[in-house]
């Protein structure tokens, strides 16, 4: 335990939710500090409850700790009360397991799940005694790495991160930890390590690239400044999930966290090709775990965690090839243990009534459907291949199987949207209510609850909509008010919407470039942390931070990229061809639907990575 232990114990008496910081969970890994050659601090840039719900962390934690000469310990962003006490008492950010300071680790890694956690990354480094700017970091300070979906546009964090890992982390993580371990032993200068890392496929070292841009911030070129750095960094793809590492045990928190259950990743990737969806592009190609692998994992995870609930997770679980068989098998295997199985991201056009009937045997949580847009025209624009009829059939099935709570997710501010599309949202919700009342009284559960959520569209890199600017805040606010008014007259529907300011900043950072590093620093200096928490988010402070940096946020969020313009993330190769994205952009303008890849290859680019995509070159474009 750390020499600061007494002080830490005293602080824990004073803070809210002390269990966030105390550790000691079942399956947490404790290794003798001096017996391992590499200490890896895995940092989740948000609170414990959020971080402990994250599947990626569980995978990488288990993966690194399986190596006998390495240890992986966890770090989370402390809440404001704890952070203030730590600063007052001079206690550095410490790991959950051994309470070693962040700066004592050889390598620290941040997972980039959403843009609004970026300030937490800087704040955690500061609190942990790690130099925030990569170029100023001392020779023997921790090597700072990052990965996750937002790493596909790493540029806003280029000033702070030594190396990004792009794509699936199961293989590249161990190549990087081994390189850092060997470098530490060799005593070679830090600059050598960066070059070594750049040679690993899937690793992007921003310091090894020069970015030239014009006065308006348009990128003219991104060029490697040393021979070790590839012109484009190709993402890592785990080709077979059955042989890829998956944990058979993970830490079980004492306090309830956001997702407090076994998460069984049944597949990775999605073949649907929704044009707004970044995950749908980044996680391509689709790879499934076999029934046998999943049954074995489920059994072991149940044994190791004791959880009473399991969720099947993926981008589109309803598309899993043999979903009904899987659910039947898991229910049978875990019947004695009384594990309830939930399907989180149900897609309305894929779940069979049969599987609905099977899940209800266990538990009836609310069902979520995501039509995303209110009219068929706009659904065609975004390539959400879902019709009104599909939705009505699925909710009718759900209501007649005894569900009474339905959530409907929509986006506003989508490209080409008009007020007719907004009326469509209201109309669709009204029809869902109608479906409920059409089910005979004795067949439906009482107390209908329909929740309609409207989030604001954020254009994301590596999507066909990456060229679009975001809808203006004024326009989004007007649309929210319009919907709020309209929903007033619809009984049984609860309407929610998100503050557009947060989506606006997300838009700034999602497609931003290296200049934004200055804004991040200024924002953290001004005290912006935990921005994803509405009670702490201060839009005014962020606007001041942009002013400090001399940058106009509108020029990021509302920016329309030219068709031939070099994107700030152009040197990151996601595997998706630019020509495919442009083709999809054009088809969106014409409201033309593109088929699901399983029905025939659409030539997104992954087909040229031999053997990676099972649907490559199936059929013709």
């Amino acid at each position, binding site marked *: 335990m750390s020499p600061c232990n*007494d002080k830490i*114990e005293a602080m824990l008496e004073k803070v809210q939710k002390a269990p966030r910081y*105390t550790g000691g969970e*079942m399956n947490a890994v404790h290794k003798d500090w001096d017996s391992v050659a590499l200490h890896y601090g895995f940092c989740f840039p948000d609170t414990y409850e959020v971080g402990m719900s994250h599947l990626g962390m569980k995978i990488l934690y288990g993966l690194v700790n399986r190596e006998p000469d390495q240890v992986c310990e966890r770090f989370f962003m402390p809440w404001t009360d704890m952070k203030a006490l730590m600063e007052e008492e001079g206690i550095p950010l410490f790991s959950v397991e051994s309470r070693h300071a962040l700066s004592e680790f050889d390598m620290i890694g941040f997972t980039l799940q959403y843009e609004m956690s970026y300030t937490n990354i800087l704040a955690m480094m500061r609190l942990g005694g790690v130099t925030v700017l990569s170029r100023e970091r001392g020779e023997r300070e921790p090597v700072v790495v990052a990965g996750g979906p937002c790493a596909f546009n790493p540029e806003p964090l280029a000033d702070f991160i030594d190396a990004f890992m792009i794509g699936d982390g199961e293989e590249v993580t161990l190549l990087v930890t081994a390189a850092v371990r060997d470098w530490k032993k060799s005593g070679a200068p830090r600059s050598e390590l960066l070059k070594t890392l750049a040679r690993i496929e899937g690793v992007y070292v921003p310091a090894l690239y020069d970015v030239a841009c014009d006065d308006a911030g348009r990128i003219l070129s991104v060029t490697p400044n040393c021979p070790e750095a590839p012109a484009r960094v190709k993402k890592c793809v785990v080709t077979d999930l059955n042989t890829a590492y998956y944990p058979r045990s993970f830490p079980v928190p004492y*306090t309830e966290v956001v997702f407090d259950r076994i998460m069984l990743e049944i597949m990775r990737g999605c073949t649907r090709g929704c044009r707004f969806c970044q995950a749908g592009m980044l996680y391509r190609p689709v790879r499934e775990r076999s029934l046998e692998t999943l049954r074995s994992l489920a059994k072991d995870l149940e044994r*190791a*965690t*004791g959880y009473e609930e399991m969720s099947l997770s993926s981008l589109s679980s309803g598309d899993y090839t043999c979903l009904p068989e899987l659910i039947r098998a898991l229910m049978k295997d875990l019947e004695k*243990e*009384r594990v309830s199985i939930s399907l989180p991201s149900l897609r309305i056009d894929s779940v069979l009534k049969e599987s609905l009937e099977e899940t209800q045997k266990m538990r009836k949580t609310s069902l979520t459907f995501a039509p995303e847009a209110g009219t068929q025209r706009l659904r065609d624009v975004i390539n959400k291949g879902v019709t009104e009829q599909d939705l009505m059939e699925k909710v009718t099935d759900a209501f007649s199987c005894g569900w009474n709570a339905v959530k409907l997710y929509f986006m506003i501010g989508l490209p080409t949207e008009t007020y007719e599309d907004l009326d469509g949202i209201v109309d669709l919700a009204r029809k869902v209510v109608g479906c409920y009342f059409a089910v005979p009284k004795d067949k439906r559960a009482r107390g209908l609850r329909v929740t309609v959520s409207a989030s604001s569209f954020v254009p994301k890199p590596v999507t066909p909509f990456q060229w679009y600017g975001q809808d203006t805040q004024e326009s989004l606010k007007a649309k929210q008010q319009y919907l709020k008014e309209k929903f007033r007259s619809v009984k049984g529907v609860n309407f929610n919407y998100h503050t557009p300011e947060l989506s606006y900043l997300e838009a700034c950072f999602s497609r931003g470039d290296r200049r934004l590093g200055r804004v991040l620093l200024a924002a953290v200096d001004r005290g912006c942390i935990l921005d994803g928490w509405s009670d702490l988010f201060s839009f005014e402070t962020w606007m001041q931070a942009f002013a400090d940096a001399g940058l106009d946020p509108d020029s990021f969020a509302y920016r329309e990229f030219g068709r031939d313009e070099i994107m700030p993330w152009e040197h990151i190769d996601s595997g998706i061809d630019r020509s495919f994205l442009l083709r999809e952009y054009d088809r969106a303008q014409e409201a033309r639907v593109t088929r699901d890849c399983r029905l025939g290859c659409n030539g997104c680019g992954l087909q040229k990575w031999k053997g990676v995509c099972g649907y490559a070159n199936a059929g013709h474009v």
Partner: protein
Amino acid sequence: MRMLATFEKSERLRHIGHLDIMRAMQRALRRSGLPVSYSKGFNPHILLTFASALSVGAAGEREILEATLDEAVAPEDFVAAMNGALPPEMQLSSARIVDDRRPAAMAMVKAADYRIRVTDASAAETLCAALPGFLAQGEIVTDRKTKSGIKPTDIRPLILSAEMDGDTLRARLTATEAVSCKPGMLMNALSAFAGIEVPRVMVTRERLLGENEDGQLLPLEAV
């Protein structure tokens, strides 16, 4: 079959609340592979009770649980299976089979032994000096938090014994389902008597006590 066992809630876990420890123990029972019994009904849960809830902020050395099993299990096998399924912070130290007709452990608790370490040395000295006079009082009225609000209560009869041992106050306090004195109440009253602010303390409940036929207090697991 009913199994009574003693377990530790380590200092590291002292901020974990009673319900969370309870859930962690239920999950450990599930992990253990032991033939645990579930309640009947629509939402079956594991049949597990604790003899006494331990406050947030306190560690416990010999806390007591009772679990119901569908099949006979030897106590040593119960301990071994559970310890394999529990983190080092929550290990079992003993177990015994108890008769089905015996009252629930919860109803048998009479008192508890506490070790209250005062982290500030000068406060410890002041309290040590004040203790004899404090205990000599005929009544000690202090606030007790109840569901219906704060109630002034005389805790003198509830303090069965108390003595300072260096920086540590050792106290035996009444703890029944009907009435109990928490270490916090004792510290509040003692600090007020000594004229100092309540110091920061580390509370450890050493054991729970029950009564034998002669009215003698014994560790509950031995009654």
